[in-house]
């Protein structure tokens, strides 16, 4: 396999997807790097070479979910007896690195995306921004076709209503 060509073809889309999920360019780049290293190590597990994009996206998504899980586990804090466990969820919106040199629309969209659940983030990024087919999203996420359809609709509705000022 010519990995340099594969990297050239698919890394921009994956980076865009990861930026939507992570909120910061540097985190997304780290995950992109990990995605390709993992893919190159396990290239024998790719059954159908025609599904390279969804295979790479699946790896990227799983790495993101793993890193988020680790982060949350690390940051669970006991606050008080009546409120034993508080999960501190990362808020990438507070990162100054984020949204640098972006239009108002893009900055606002990123902020809204960062506040959505991973499910809606993924649905919106893959379907609306990356224009992946629902079949590919089904493969990447493991959702059923009707779930893909519903999640994309919900993400669209939520973001459209939040961005009403840009109409």
């Amino acid at each position, binding site marked *: 396999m010519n990995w*340099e060509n594969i*990297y050239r073809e698919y*890394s*921009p*889309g994956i*980076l*865009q997807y990861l*930026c939507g999920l992570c909120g910061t360019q540097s985190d997304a*780049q780290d995950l*992109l*790097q990990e995605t*390709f*290293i993992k893919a*190159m*190590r396990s290239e024998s597990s790719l059954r159908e070479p025609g599904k390279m994009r969804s295979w790479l996206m699946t790896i990227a998504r799983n790495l993101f979910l793993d890193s988020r899980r680790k982060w949350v586990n690390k940051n669970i804090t006991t606050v008080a007896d009546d409120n034993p466990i508080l999960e501190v969820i990362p808020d990438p919106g507070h990162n100054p690195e984020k949204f640098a040199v972006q*239009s108002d*629309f*893009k900055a606002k*969209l990123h902020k809204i995306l960062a506040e959505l659940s991973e499910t809606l983030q993924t649905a919106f990024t893959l*379907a*609306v*921004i990356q*224009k992946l*087919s*629902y079949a590919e999203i089904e493969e990447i996420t493991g959702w059923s076709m009707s779930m893909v*359809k*519903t999640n*994309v*609709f919900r993400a*669209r*509705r939520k*973001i*459209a209503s939040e*961005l009403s000022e*840009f*109409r």
Partner: protein
Amino acid sequence: MKTCEEYQIDISAMLDGELTPAEIAATVQHLAKCSECERVFEEFQLLQEKVDKEYSRPAVPQELWKNIQSKTIHEQQSTDLTGRVIEFRKWAFRIISVAAGIAITFTAGYFLGKPSAPLLIDPSTPIILASQKGSMSDERFQQLTRELLIADQKYQQKMYFILHALNSEYMEGDLDPPSIDNNDYTDRLRLINSTGDGEIVKY
């Protein structure tokens, strides 16, 4: 009958090119008579236009690929070394296995194929001619008699091995193959030799 929300899900899918022509027709028909769904359609369409305008494929820094390459090349080198060691072990194991297999085959062949008793027919043993040998020449008669005795002995030896193998398989404990009674052959030869009147001894 579909609800408006169900139609809106279809509107979203229609914008993504995921509806069949029949579904598109039904959705468009509904849009013509439902102002709320038409508003949602326009909202989604506008959002899509803005996203398409704002999002181009991001540039990926070139050094990122260099990092990936250097990491995987480093891993590849250590994997290659480990791989070579594993490959060497694999081949060494194969060669030793083949050598052991050959050695076992030869040893087993030597012991199993070796007759348990020497052939008793000495070519120089005199065989007394029988009167009913017919028109057969003397030499031919003597030769056939020897061959018959040798073949008989070989047949019996093989039968002993087969019986031994069957016994070992079906019965517990190791049974020694019954040994061939050398005296039996010697007696037979003696008997042949002693019938001076030319009778063939039947046994």
